[in-house]
């Protein structure tokens, strides 16, 4: 059972991803895999979001942007790294411009593997993220009735 005050809203950022995982994230929101029926919205503003969904590895220009979006989100927040590239760098980890997965810049709570990660796996990852979010709410003493 969830004790969150509202359905989680996602902010999605593509950090040097090939777009495969991003299309699958968008495919989760469209008919067939539809998560919007649960109230999960893909919101563009980080200040309104609870879950930060990142795809793709980290390159030189992206570090500042990822940190910026993470800092703008209000506590408590959860980071879900989607795809092999966000987890560790994927196929590109030996490239000169790639410094690794997203956890080199911000703390990650859930890793979803795959290349490209399937929508079922992404929804699974977001649901696990919800559990982490609930735990964080509990720690802060903000369990809403």
């Amino acid at each position, binding site marked *: 059972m969830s004790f969150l005050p509202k359905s989680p809203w996602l902010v999605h950022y593509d950090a040097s991803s090939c777009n495969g995982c991003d299309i699958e994230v968008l495919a989760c929101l469209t008919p067939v895999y539809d998560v919007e029926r649960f109230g999960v919205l893909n919101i563009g503003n980080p200040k309104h979001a609870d879950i930060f969904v990142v795809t793709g590895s980290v*390159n030189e220009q992206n570090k500042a942007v990822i940190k910026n979006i993470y800092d703008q989100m209000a506590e408590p927040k959860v980071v879900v790294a989607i795809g092999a590239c966000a987890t560790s760098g994927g196929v590109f980890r030996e490239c000169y411009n790639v410094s690794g997965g997203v956890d080199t810049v911000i703390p990650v709570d859930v890793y979803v593997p795959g290349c490209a990660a399937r929508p079922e796996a992404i929804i699974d990852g977001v649901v696990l993220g919800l559990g982490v979010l609930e735990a964080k709410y509990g720690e802060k003493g903000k369990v809403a009735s």
Partner: protein
Amino acid sequence: MDPQVFFPAVKTEVVEIAQRNKALGYRFAQMHCVKTPSEMFIIYTFEKLDLSIEQYRLPAETDGAVPSVSGVFLAAVLYENEISELYGVEFTGLALDFAGTLYETAKPRAFAEVATPVKKTPVKKAAAAEKTKVDLKKPAEEKAPINLKKPADGGGN
């Protein structure tokens, strides 16, 4: 498929070639740089409406200067910026100069260093076989039989 034809060119005639091709109805398709341990060159590709192409090969070197064709074809500007940032070739007379901020890579001029592939010396098969060959005619060496009744050294006596 037919082998490709690359006309040789030198730096001083690059702009002239571009102008001549523009008058003939070609447009700028692409350009790129290739660097190997033994040579470095830039390839220009011009394309016509009927999809036929004409290609030129220009020898170049890192830190060398090449006149830019962006005055004739504005489309060349992004390609020249990319080559100058990744390979270190300088283009004089760029219409739009990003001054090294196009990609801002972690390692500047990353393509200018080429790794020479490590060549493994082939192990001579016959010599290797000699070492491991077992001579079946020679009897196996006599080994001292292990005496199980004798206690091991260091054990309590």
